[in-house]
Structures are given as structure tokens and as C-alpha cells.
């Protein structure tokens, strides 16, 4: 085994390394000050974070110029377009979350460097997860990102809801890790001791029952991370207890990196028709339960949680189609959908952060008359909700269109039908806040602290991106297609 590290290997790990260093710098920059000024906004942390994320994002393009597609670090990770796109989603999400964190946390009197550092560390491991190509690196990356997120979920440690949510997340997460690991052990055993995905794909253990069950268990581990039914129980409770910014961060980044990794894993290992059928069942139940349970939520965070579950369901559809033999063309909708979902969700959580600055508002009726007080925020939230509902001219519409049209083309009519029914149901609860914002009178007691520039900027930019992806989706679709083709070689 070579112990020297090649240039390509350095380039491959560069984004993650930059992010980890960023986190460390943030921690050190805040040394000795955290105790007294937890109420200040600490712009320097955001600046360090933004610099780090921008550098890491730039590093993605540096990678792009290298011709290294082969296995790096003895097959532990790769450096392809697919991984880079996943890392791109994560890095952009981290950037915006960092921008929003300062003012939000300061208003709660608990702004310290740990939060932004945890975003940076988490982003690092997520970037690695998107590039991981063997079971060990996948496991390590997924665990490290989970640990970071557990802590963020319970960040307001003086609040009961936060610690309850965090603990639920932790126990269920560790429980699912057990199954994930068991599944990996099964695969390892069934394929004659291979951990690298290429070796697994090449081995003759694929027909083994042990292998199938192992794949299923790994799938369950990922299903937990993305919040698919019946492994979704944690989602609403954690979303409600955790800081809004952390929720936005994990709703996008955890889901994106896990899905990118799951997609790579399934495209490599195959898994066959049996797994596709189970995945289809999961997808159907997820879409229906997510949308139905969101219907009567008064809490916006819980509503977004169930909406997130429903979107996981939509995202599983292309995986089902891909597993049943279609391969790349349907899987290509996943990167696009993730980009769309990231922009949309960040805009939505930006608004949630803005209205809960200063006090813990997250009820639908708290939005009454927002359009009169904060037209920009109301507009951003409206765009985000319309995109989530899949209304045309938005990114969400194109994403859903790609997924459903692919499913219909490949003959998965039932799956597409459930997707459409789910979307129809979802319009109701997505439009409720819109009605509140635009057609209700503001409450007399309604007092909004002016949103910080970071939040306003995030909402504006992400709302704009949502529209842009909706109007000019071609280049992104093209990129997604090329990235999926890159995995399959």
C-alpha cells in the first residue's frame, strides 16, 4: 500500500479540509470571549465562515480542472462531478446558514463560536460523505455529520424542547446507526470481505440473501437520515425543538448529502428489483403520510418537517426507477431536485428565522399581515412555498416535473399518481401561510425586530435562485445528467 499522498488526493479532500480548518479558526477566534458577549452578533465569525465556505466552493472548481476520476485513498473516496455537486449543495447551504446564525442566536442570548464551527465541521463531513466510495468512509462520514447535528439540535440547552428533541434524535440516530453498521457487516461478509463499492459491485456475492438483507439495512440507515416513513418519527419533534437555523441547515444538508451517498451506493450495488419494490412502498407511504400529517399543523416548523418528509418521498421515486433498471437518466433528477430544494428551503427557513428573532414565534397565524410589515420576507416565503408546492415558474415545479415525467415514462404510473395526489394535498397547507401573509390584517401585538442583513440577503438570494432555477433549468439539468453519467462511467 502506498503511503504517499498524490496531488489528486489532496485536491479531492481540499474542500472538506478547508471546512474543518474554518471550524477550528472560528473556535479559536472566539476563544475567551464567549462567556460575556453571547448577545452580540459576532460578525467576525460569519466572515470567517463565509470566507471558508467560499474557498471550499472555489476548491470544488479547482478539482474540476484535474483529470482525476480514479480511486483515491485506496478506494476510500473519489472525486467526480456527482460528489462535487453534492458538496456544492452542502457548502452553499452551510454558507447561508452561517450568515443567518449570528443574529438569530444573539437574539436568544446564546451566540457562541461552537454553532458556526459545528456547521463548518458538519459541512466537512458531509462533503466527504458525498465523495465516499467505501463502506468505512461512508460510515465514518455519516456518523461524524450526525454527531455535529445532534449537538446543534440541542443547542439551546436551557430549553426543555431543545434537549428533548436532541435526545430523541440521538437515541433514534444511534439505534439506526446500529442497523446501518449491521447492514455493512452483512455486505462485507457476503461479498468476501470487500468494503469498496467497486469491489462490492464486482464481487459474486450479489445473489446472496445476506447481501440483500445487508443492502436493505444500509438503506434503512439512510432512510432514517432523510426522514422516510416509518423511520421519520424524529423529524417533527427535532424540527420543533431545534434552533430554526439549525433546522434549515439539517433539513437541506443532511438530506442532500445522505441522498447523494445513497444514490451512489445503490447505483453501485444495484440491489435489484426486490429492493426497488420495497423502496417504492416506502416512497408511497412517505409521500402520503408526510402530506397528510402536515395538513393540520399550526406550527410552521412542524409543517415544514412533515413537508420535508413528503419531499423525501418524492426524492425516492427516481431511485426506485433507477434501481429497476433505467439507470442514470432518472437518477439525474436527484441532483437537480436537491439544488431546487436547497434554495427553496433556505428561503423558507430564513423567513422563519426572521420572524422568530427575539421570541419563539412559529405558528401560522404569527404570519398574519407579514406582507404589510415585511414585504420582501413575505415575497420570499411565498416564492418558497409555491416552489415547495410545485407551482410552475419555480424550481420546485421543474424538479417535480422531472421526477414524475421520468416515472411515467418508465411505466411507474402508480408511483407518479401518488406523487401527484400528494402534491395536490400539499397545495392546501402551503397556501395557508400565503393567505395569512397577504390577506390577513397584522396583529396589533405583532412586533418584528428588523431582520438582519444576513437573513434578508439569504431570503432574497435563495428566493431569486428558486425563480431562476424554475425559469432557466436547462444548464442545471444538463449538469445533473452529466454528473450521474460520471458515476456509472
Amino acid at each position, binding site marked *: 500500500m502506498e503511503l504517499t499522498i498524490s496531488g489528486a488526493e489532496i485536491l479531492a479532500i481540499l474542500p472538506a479540509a478547508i471546512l474543518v480548518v474554518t471550524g477550528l479558526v472560528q473556535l479559536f477566534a472566539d476563544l475567551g470571549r464567549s462567556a460575556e458577549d453571547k448577545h452580540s452578533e459576532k460578525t467576525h465569525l460569519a466572515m470567517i465562515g463565509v470566507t471558508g465556505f467560499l474557498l471550499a466552493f472555489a476548491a470544488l472548481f479547482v478539482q474540476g480542472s484535474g483529470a482525476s476520476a480514479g480511486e483515491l485513498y485506496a478506494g476510500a473516496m473519489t472525486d467526480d462531478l456527482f460528489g462535487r455537486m453534492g458538496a456544492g449543495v452542502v457548502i452553499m447551504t452551510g454558507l447561508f446558514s452561517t450568515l443567518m446564525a449570528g443574529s438569530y442566536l444573539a437574539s436568544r442570548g446564546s451566540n457562541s463560536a461552537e454553532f458556526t464551527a459545528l456547521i463548518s465541521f458538519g459541512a466537512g463531513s458531509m462533503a466527504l460523505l458525498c465523495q465516499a466510495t467505501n463502506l468505512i468512509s461512508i460510515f465514518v462520514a455519516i456518523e461524524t455529520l450526525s454527531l455535529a447535528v445532534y449537538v446543534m439540535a440541542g443547542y439551546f440547552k436551557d430549553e426543555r424542547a431543545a434537549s428533548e428533541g436532541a*435526545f*430523541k434524535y440521538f*437515541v*433514534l440516530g444511534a*439505534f*439506526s446507526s446500529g*442497523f446501518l453498521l449491521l447492514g455493512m457487516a452483512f455486505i462485507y461478509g457476503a461479498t468476501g470481505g470487500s468494503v469498496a463499492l467497486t469491489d462490492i459491485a464486482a464481487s459474486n456475492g450479489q445473489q446472496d*440473501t445476506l447481501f*440483500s*438483507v445487508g443492502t*436493505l*439495512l444500509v438503506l*434503512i440507515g439512510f432512510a*432514517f437520515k432523510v426522514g422516510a416513513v*416509518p*423511520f421519520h*418519527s*424524529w423529524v*417533527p*419533534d427535532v424540527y420543533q425543538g431545534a434552533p430554526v437555523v439549525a433546522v434549515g441547515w439539517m433539513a437541506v444538508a443532511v438530506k442532500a448529502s445522505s441522498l447523494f451517498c445513497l444514490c451512489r451506493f445503490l447505483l453501485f450495488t444495484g440491489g435489484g428489483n*426486490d*429492493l426497488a*419494490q*420495497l423502496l417504492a*412502498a*416506502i416512497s408511497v407511504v412517505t409521500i402520503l*403520510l408526510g402530506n*397528510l*400529517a*402536515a*395538513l*393540520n*399543523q399550526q406550527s410552521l416548523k412542524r409543517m415544514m418537517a412533515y413537508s420535508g418528509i413528503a419531499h423525501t418521498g418524492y426524492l425516492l421515486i427516481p431511485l426506485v426507477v433507477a434501481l429497476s433498471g433505467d439507470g442514470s437518466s432518472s437518477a439525474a433528477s436527484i441532483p437537480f431536485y436537491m439544488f431546487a430544494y436547497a434554495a427553496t428551503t433556505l428561503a423558507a427557513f430564513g423567513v422563519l428565522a426572521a420572524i422568530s428573532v427575539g421570541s419563539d414565534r412559529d405558528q401560522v397565524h404569527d404570519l398574519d399581515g407579514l406582507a404589510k410589515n415585511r414585504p420582501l420576507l413575505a415575497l420570499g416565503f411565498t416564492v418558497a412555498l409555491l416552489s415547495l408546492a410545485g407551482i410552475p415558474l419555480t424550481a420546485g415545479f421543474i424538479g417535480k416535473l422531472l421526477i414524475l415525467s421520468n416515472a411515467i415514462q418508465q411505466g411507474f404510473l402508480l408511483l407518479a399518481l401518488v406523487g401527484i395526489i400528494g402534491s395536490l*394535498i400539499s397545495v392546501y397547507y402551503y397556501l395557508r401561510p400565503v393567505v395569512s401573509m397577504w390577506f390577513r390584517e397584522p396583529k396589533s401585538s405583532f412586533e418584528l425586530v428588523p431582520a438582519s442583513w444576513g437573513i434578508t440577503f439569504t431570503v432574497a438570494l435563495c428566493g431569486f435562485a428558486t425563480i431562476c432555477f424554475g425559469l432557466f433549468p436547462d444548464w442545471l439539468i444538463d449538469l445533473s445528467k452529466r454528473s450521474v453519467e460520471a458515476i456509472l462511467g
Partner: protein
Amino acid sequence: MDINLLWIPLLPFLGFLITGMLGKKIGNKSVNAIACGLPILSFVISYAAWSRLVYEGTELHWSGFPWIWIEGLVEIPFALHLDGIAAVMCMVITGVGSLIHLYSIGYMKGDPGYHRYFAYLNLFTTFMLILVLGDNLLLMFIGWEGVGLCSYLLIGFWYEEDANCAAGKKAFIMNRVGDFAFLLGIFLCLAHFGSLDMSTLTDATAISALSAETLSVPLLGSVSVISMIVLLLFIGATGKSAQIPLYVWLPDAMAGPTPVSALIHAATMVTSGVYLCCRLMPLFEAAPAILAIIAGIGACTALLAALIAFGQNDIKKVLAYSTVSQLGYMFFAIGVGAFSAAFFHVVTHAFFKALLFLGSGSVIHAMHHEQDMRKMGGLRKQLPFTHLTFLIGTLAIAGVPPLAGFFSKDEILFAGYQQGFLMGVDSAALFWGISFLTAGMTAFYMIRCVALTFWGESRVDSSLEGKVHEPGGWIGFALFMLAVASILGGFLNVPEFLGGHATLGHFTGLHSSAAAHGAAASFSPEVLHAAEWKSMFLSLAVAGSGLLLAFYCYGKGHSLRKRFTESGVGRWLCRLSQRKFYVDEFYATVFVRPFETMSHLLFILIDRILIDGILVSGSALLTRGLGNWFRKMQTGFIPGYLLTFGCGVLLLVYMMLSLIQQGGAQ
């Protein structure tokens, strides 16, 4: 100087935008300047374009941009084209239109919807110009629908009254029937010509290439494609140009402000069906069977409308039916192949009918919105100028030489005479007879209208005594200009046997009769001229007798009229005419009521019970119930969550194993 055709419709559109959006803020003075100034500017450009055409012979074209563009399949540009017909139409629309805009300043003074009115009027002008200039059928259709929309908006302009709204809706729906056929015609053109460009549709080789193709149509059997296209386009035209069977909306459309009636429902929009036929002349000429139908419909419409006009007491209704009748003339002309005469009549009719409407508007304005002629009479003294201009219009429409109507109507009648008697087509002879009679009737009912309104003893309500004044200003100006046009308009196209040059006919390139291009020059000029003299003499005679009879009936002694109306047949005929031959009632029983009953039934069955009851409320209840159930499953207990998780794993593994077993068993 280069003239961009786009400016012609764009200027009124700008006017629409400004007056529509800022009208309230900029005040009525500015609205006047913008809403009237821009159409006048548009007229100037049209004039410039026209003179280019006259002196340099260049047909202006604006190639625009690709509009509906599927490479190799459907290629429809957004392009404008100005040929002779379009140039004349543009001048009429912007010229008469501008006068009516100016007239409206006086007429609409103090109306709360002042700026809204001018915005609509400008929008109408825009669409009308697009209709005329559009270089393909689809663009023309945009204008066609747009003018329909504006007509609807302006008929229901005083929307506080239900009757006005109902009239607007009636016009809109009637037009939809025709538009549907028009649209089908467009599709058929696209399918068979592969293009909607005017140049393709009028191309002789393209038409002759299609002449052998047939379509099998339900009820009609095998029909040639060209005939079908022409028939569908003509049905579209019957809607917009108020022909049998779709004419009933036009009299009701008089609910709108009178200048609107003058502009839209007399001078411009309603003639767009005739314009369509003229623009597509080669196509129409390729379907002689349909042309015969067109001639019949035109003549019958002319007669029916004239008969109804006898019994009307509302001054605007008389004019409305006279419009329908004159439009019938135009279609009769097209039917006998006299496209040039039809178009000539469009132009002269625009002058004198606008004049008549504006005159009636002046009366109505002076009478504080009284339209019933039974409550007028003797207005000549109070409104001498209006009386004079109205009389000019009446004599013009009656066909008294040398006013405008004389020349155009004479040409139409001659075309029918020529086809009926010189060429020996029996149906044409019959339709000529109908039209010939109608010419006399026109003279009669128009004089009746003048007599009831202006002559005789005053029947004006005593409360209005002394309040009736001649409206001055812009109203007078517009009346004056149109009166001049009505006197001189006929000289645009003086026929050759009277020493003229048929200028308009040559300029537009339209054929003056079926003979001119078909059986053609088989008649020597001497024979033709003799026939022309004869025809002219006949039409003068019939118009004259109509006039004389009317003078006699509505003059000093009432005996003849009294004796007629009190006789049994007379009373019956009067009732029939007054009730418009019960056509509205007929439509109501045959179409509207059964349709309403059916839709009500379907509303109860499908909408209320099935959709609202079962599907909507039912599914909403179901989803809500399920949603709440799912919510309650989220108990918050960690052991419960863990158990769900564990059971999920077990269930999935079990399903996996059984699937594998199934696969193995196979």
C-alpha cells in the same frame, strides 16, 4: 423616410396603457390629449404609409419576430403587412376613429368612467388595426378577438344596469359561436396550406394545388377543402358582421355609449367580416358554391333587417338594423363576386353610418338620454345643424346622387344585375330582386326616422322644454367632417360609365364582378354600359319611390299610414316588425332555455352532489381525518418511536426475505 408599421397599432396601445393606468391621476384634460392625440398621430402615419403606396407603389411590411415557431411544423411570425385594402381600412379606422374620439370628449363629459372609456376606445383601435394589418390569419384572429373583447367592455360600459351587461354578454357569446368556426377555419388552413400567411392563402398556385382535395364532413358528405375553409371563415364573419343567423346581438349592442355604436357597431368592427373576405379574395373566389350561399345570406339579412327597422321606435335601434341591412348588402356584393363594390360600401358606409349615429347621439345628448322617437318630433328647430347633417346621412344611405351611398350601392346592385341577368344565374337574379326591394325600403325607414325625430309636431316631454340645445364644440366638428365625407366619399370610386376611373377598385386590386375575371370580357363595353345605365336608373327609381312614399306617409297628412296600420294585415305586419319577427324568442326557446335547463340539471347532479358533495367535501373530510390520525400517531414517546422503527425494520426485512423466496421459487 422609413415607416415602421408597428407604430400604427402601437400608438393607440400606448394611449390605452397611459389612460388606463394613470387616467385618474393625470386628469381629464391630459386624457383627452393622449387618448385623441395618439390615434390622430396613428392616422398621420397611416396616411404617410398610404401615400407611399400610392406614389411609390411599395407595400409596406414589418417582418416582426417569430411568434409561434416550431421549426418545420408551425411557423407563424408576428408580422404586419400593408396593402391597398389595409391602407384604406387603416385610414378609415384611424380617421373616423379619431373623429369619434373627439366627439366623445363632448359626449362623455362628466361621466365617472371617463378615462376608462377612452382606455377601452384606444384599446379597440389597437386591436382593430392589428386585425387589419396582421400578415397572417392567427394575428388577425388576435385582433378579431380583441375587438370582440373591447366591444363587450364598451357595450357593458354602464355596467350598473343589468340590461347593459346582458347585452354585452349576448354580443360576446354570439361572437364566440362565429369565432369557433373561424378558429376551425384557421386550423384547416394550417393543416392544408401549412401556413397562415396571407401571401400563401391568396397564392393562386397554392389554391389550385388544393382545389382537388376533399374532406368528409358529417352531415355534408364530401366537401372540397377550399369550400370548407371558406364556409368556416364566412360563419366566423357572420358572427362579427351580424349576418343571419348570428345578427341578433348587434341591435342589443346599442346599450353602449352612442359614439361606441358609431365606431364599433357601425363603422369599423362589424365590417371586419367583409374585410376578411376581401383580404382573402382569391380563396373565396375558388369556392363559387359558398359564394352563392354568401349572396343569399347577405340579401336575406338585408331584407329582414330592413323589415324590422320599419317597426322600431328607438332611434338607435333603427340605425342598428339599418347597419345589419347594409352589412347584408356588402355580403351580397361579395357573394356575386363584386369584392370591390363590397369594400367601397364598407368605406362609404363608415362615413354615413358614423354620421347618422353621431347625429343620433347628438339628439340623445340634447334630449338627456331619451332615445324613443315617439317622444321627439319637431327637433329641427332646436337642433338645426344636427338635422342638416342627419339628413345628409339619410340621403346618403338612401342612395341619392351624388352622395356617397349612391355610388357604392349602385355598384353592388349592378353587380347583382350583371350576374343575374347578363350571365343568367337564377339565384343571383332572385337575390338581386331582394336587394333591389330593400333599397327602396331603406329610403323609406330612414325618412321615417328623420320625420319622427326632426319633423312634424313636437312630442318632447314638457320637463325638457327649452332645455334642448345644439351641442357644440367637438360634437359639431365631428358631425361636420363626417357630413363632408358622406357627401364626397362616393367620388373615390366613380364608375367608368359615369366618366370616373374606379380609383378605389384599381388601388385595392379587388375584382369588381365575377365577370371581370371569369366569363370576363365576353360582354362588349357597350352592352355593359347600357346595363349599367339601366341598373342605375332602376335603383334611382326604387330609392326615389321609397323616399316619396315616406314623405307622403310621414308628411302632413297621415291618412295613408293610419289606414294601413289599422287594417288587419297592416297591424299584424307592424306587430311582426316591432317584435323583430320573434327571432330572439325563437332562439330563446330552441337554444337558450333547453341549454339552461340542461346546465341547471348538470349543476345539481354533477357539481352540487357529485363534485361538491362527494368528491370535494368527502375527500377533504377523508384527508383531514387521515391527517389528524397520522398526527395522533406522533405521540412523543421515545419508546413508541423506537418500537415503530424496530417494527419497520422487521417488516421490511420480512418483506425482503419473502420477495427473495418468491424469486427463488420461480
